[in-house]
């Protein structure tokens, strides 16, 4: 296994800059999730690292060896030892599961079943899957075999392109767990590309947010979620309520009272970002109940703050008795909030 370093990476197609000045370090043995909306350039970044395309500028190195240096070095994909799990798996339809997994092994190892069974164990599939054909597998099983195939030759790094897309919710969770376990089992350095926030936050040791070809923030999931670099990122990685406030010596005054801040900025008018789960119902008359949606264990209350903005808030409550539509409720904020200059 090895670490991945990308520095000052840039790529454009014609006049359109797809990636600009990308700096990304993935430490050995960890998983970094690249989170971006469609069209943000995440697949391009992945293809640069594998070597299907070459950067216009910048350097990519794997385990300290330069594999791409714009205009100077381009190691072809087959010489990079970078594993790749394509969207939908891309299993070779003419080969069995065993044939697929053994594809990247040296010729003399392809015949022996040892590594194939090891990989099946790793991705949580029974050994009797070995002689099956890809078209006899479910979507989730195909992704697992694709991961086993990528890991079998012991690559220095594995890249996963939206590995769970097109799977239904239950299968998604199960497959995700199998993938995390397999990657941990091999101690693999991995990069996962996704547009799914919860996938990125739950799987990545670090999450890198890609927006319009720029890596706007790379941080641990908790840091990213609680202290997003700007309000766009805040909205992108989760639901966020933004209030107006006035910052004064480390505390911010808002319509909901004085709140503790996590970060600092110049005193004065600020925007205050609060995650919906920080809100608690309390006595008072801060917001009006617009409606509710019963979800079994919890109920979602649709609230509007009183005042000129009537800021909407979706509040999740596990109380049995919830206030009815039109009632006024009080709100308090649990924990710290993040402030941004106006």
């Amino acid at each position, binding site marked *: 296994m090895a670490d991945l370093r990308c520095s000052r990476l840039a790529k454009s197609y014609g006049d359109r800059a797809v990636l600009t000045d990308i700096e990304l370090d993935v430490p050995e043995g960890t998983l970094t999730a690249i989170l971006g909306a469609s069209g943000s350039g995440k697949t391009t970044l992945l293809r640069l690292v594998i070597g299907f395309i070459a950067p216009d500028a910048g350097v990519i190195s794997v385990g300290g060896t330069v594999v791409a240096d714009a205009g100077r070095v381009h190691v072809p994909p087959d010489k990079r030892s970078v594993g790749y799990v394509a969207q*939908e798996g891309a299993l070779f339809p003419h080969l069995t599961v065993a044939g697929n997994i053994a594809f990247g092994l040296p010729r003399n190892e392809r015949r022996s079943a040892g590594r194939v069974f090891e990989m099946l164990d790793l991705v949580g599939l029974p050994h009797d899957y070995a002689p099956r054909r890809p078209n006899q597998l479910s979507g989730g099983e195909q992704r697992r075999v694709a991961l086993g195939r990528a890991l079998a030759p012991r690559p220095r790094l594995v890249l996963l392109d939206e590995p769970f897309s097109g799977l239904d919710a239950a299968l998604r969770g199960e497959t995700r767990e199998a993938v995390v376990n397999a990657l941990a089992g091999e101690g693999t350095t991995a990069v996962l590309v996704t547009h799914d926030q919860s996938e990125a936050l739950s799987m990545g040791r670090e999450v890198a947010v890609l927006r319009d070809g720029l890596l706007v923030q790379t941080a641990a999931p908790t840091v990213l979620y609680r202290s997003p670099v700007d309000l766009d990122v805040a909205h992108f990685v989760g639901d966020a309520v933004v209030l107006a406030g006035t910052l004064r010596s480390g505390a911010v005054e808002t319509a909901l009272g004085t709140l503790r801040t996590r970060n600092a900025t110049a005193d004065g008018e600020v925007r205050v970002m609060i995650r919906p789960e920080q809100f608690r119902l309390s006595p008072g008359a801060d917001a009006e109940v617009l409606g509710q949606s019963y979800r079994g264990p919890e109920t979602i209350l649709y609230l509007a703050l009183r005042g000129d903005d009537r800021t909407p808030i979706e509040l999740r409550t596990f109380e049995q008795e919830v206030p009815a539509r039109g009632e006024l409720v009080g709100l308090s904020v649990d924990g710290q909030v993040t402030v941004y200059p106006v």
Partner: protein
Amino acid sequence: MTAHRLARPFAIHPPLPRRRADGASRPLLVVCGVVALLVLLPVVVTIIQASQGGFSAAGDALRASSTLGLVKNTFLVAAISVPVCAVFGVAGAWFVERTQLPARRVWGVLLVAPLTVPPFVTSYAWANLGNPFQGLYGAAGIIGFTYFPIVFLLVAVALRGLDPALEETAQSLGLGTARIFFRVILPQLRPAILGGLLLVTLDALVEFDAFVALKFKTFSSDIYAQYQLGFSASGAAALSFISIAFCVVLLFGEAWLRGNRNYTRVSQGARRATIRYPLGRATLPVLAGVGAVVAIGVGIPVVTLIKWVVTASSAGLTSASNNLHYLLPASVTSIELGVGAALLALLFAVPVAVLAVRFRGPEVTALERSVYLAFALPDLVGGVALAYFASHWVSFLYGGFFLLVFAEAILFLPFAVVALRATFGQIEPSLEESARSLGAGPVAALWRVTAPLARPGFLAAAVLVFAFTLGDLSTAQVLLPLNDYTLGTEFQANSASVAFAAASPFAGVLIVLAMVAAYILMSRFGEVRALSED
């Protein structure tokens, strides 16, 4: 072990020299460039030949009063036959692939068969029908009925590849079958139709074998006459300038019409079964129409052949039975020639097809297009050019069998490329990319992933070249080694004697081979290997 494996790739490859990864790799471009040069070889030699005769001689040939009329005739043939090919090809493919036409597989094979029946056999059969079939309409009819299966095959592949969800959506929006065809299906078939018609048009402009038995004179038959009458090779070569010019204009025109359409299937995941529309009360008329096309395309040559044997005089029958003696050697030579040309054409076609399917860019377009310059010369001129080239520069090839194999491979290379593209286009690029990421180089990825999946396409491409080689007369007449004979040359030699009956054994074998070829083409053209296989 692990450490060794990790160290391996980079130990051998210290920082590599500058390489472009986005476009096609340089080795691929170089290989395709070599193929393009081989295709261009006869064209270049022809230009040299023409210049040797002096440009005044070339000018005389071009100014000859008959030339304009011949050009007009040639264009008329193309103008009539191309729409015929478009209509029969598209309609045939639609009925076979997308309707509940009874016995549709059988009709499919019979609709492909006219392509594999040698054009000179068709030509004699039509000429035999009488005078009205010996003029413009006969010529255009033969081209139309011989070459519409090209359009048929390409459109059939495109129809199989369409996402049924589009039609289902159109149905749900209240469109009937006919309106779905014209508003949803036909626009998506545009690249396939244009690609097929390009081949037909180019072929029509330089076709000679199909007119061999007609009184109708085209451009290439005049060139043929120039050689036959021993006028001057340079005069004929000069006339070829016109066909070269047409070819280049058409190639650019089609590229422009096609635009930036992508042939590769965009959608992913399993392909669902396509919709087959019931024909209902239209069943009988459609059967009658398809039957009529088959009757003209295949029926005329086959029935004529039978008639030749049945109505033959005893002298004719005697010479026919005498000829049986030559049947086996002629068949062996023809098959050797066909197999050799098919394999060589595949070798040349694979890099070009990979380039055309997987990469975009001006150099890709230029290389892919240059392969079609095989159509720039009438077969005979190309053959003469290669003979001239061999006699002057590579004398060990001159008069040898390989030169003919090479000529046929070059001549029919565009068909092999088209057939391979149709199959390669069905294979997701992500499969090759996965292979690359697993350590397979570009050649290994082709060999271990693309080739096994594309097996039916390889077979179809080979069979197409094989069938065309069997059906070629002009090139064989120029380049066949002395004392060798093929089914085609024997047919031709005997067609002039006592009665056609003497030629019938050769035509019979050619037609049987044609039917086998048609069957393989119908089942394999543009297909990817079925997953349930072995």
